[in-house]
C-alpha cells in the first residue's frame, strides 16, 4: 500500500525539501509506527531530528487524514499522514 506523509517546517528540510513523501508498506493496512519506520529507513536524519525535538520539549504530533492519532493508529492505502511540530507561537498542538 502507498501512504502520503506530509512534512512541514524544519521536518521538510530533513526530507530534502519535499512537502510530501510517499511511503510504500507491504499489505493493505499497517500501524502508523510501521509506516514511520519505513519512512525513517529512507530518511534516517528525520527520525533523529524528531527525537532531538522531543528531548527539547518540542515533541511532534501525528495526524491521519486530519485527525490526531497515536503510533498505534491503523493506516490504510491512500491515507494522508502528517507529522507536525508544535505550532509557531504556541505549545504542542492538542
Amino acid at each position, binding site marked *: 500500500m502507498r501512504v502520503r506523509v506530509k512534512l*512541514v*517546517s524544519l521536518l521538510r*528540510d530533513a526530507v530534502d525539501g519535499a512537502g510530501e513523501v510517499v511511503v510504500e508498506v507491504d499489505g493493505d493496512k499497517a500501524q502508523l509506527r510501521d509506516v514511520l519506520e519505513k519512512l525513517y529507513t529512507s530518511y534516517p536524519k528525520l527520525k533523529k531530528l524528531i527525537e*532531538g*525535538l522531543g528531548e527539547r520539549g518540542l515533541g511532534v504530533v501525528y495526524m491521519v487524514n486530519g485527525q490526531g492519532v497515536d503510533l498505534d493508529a491503523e493506516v490504510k492505502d491512500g491515507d494522508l499522514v502528517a507529522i507536525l*511540530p*508544535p505550532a*509557531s507561537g504556541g505549545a504542542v498542538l492538542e
Partner: protein
Amino acid sequence: MSKPIIRVGLSKEPVSLDDVAARLARETNGLGAGSLVVFMGFVKGVVDGYKVNTLSYEAYEDVALKKMEEIAREEAAKWEKTYAIWIIHRIGVLKPGDPTIYVFVVAEPRHKAFELASRILDRVKHEVPIYKLEAREDGEYWILGDHTRVRRGEELQEAEKR
C-alpha cells in the same frame, strides 16, 4: 438569538480592515450589536536586536481552517451575545510591517468583545498548525512552540551527529 457569523480564512494577500469591519457592522447592527474589536498582528522589523528581512508562514491548510473554525465556534458558544467572529491568518512570505493575523469580534458588551478577541488569538497561536520561518540578518530561524527559535540547518547537523 440568531446564530453568530463565523468566518475563517487563510490569505496570501492583506485584507482591508475597513471593508471587513464595515461589512460586519452592517450585518450585525440590526441584531443589537454596537461593538467591534479588531486585533491585527504584523511582522516585527527587529528581533533580538537583529533586522528581520522576511517572515514566511506555512499552514497545514485543511486542518488549520478546521481548527480555526472550531476555536471560533467554541468561543462564540461561551457568550450568548457574540454576533460575529472572523479570523484571517496570512500565509506566504511577509515583510516587516505586513499584517500577519486578523481577529474580528462583534459582541456585547464591549469588554466581552475584547476578552473574546484576546482568547481567540491565544488559541489560534497555540492550536492551529501554522509555522514560521524568520529570515533575519544573522540567519534563518524556524519558530516552534512558545518562541523557541531553531537556526535553520543546525538541528539537522545535530541529528547527523547522533
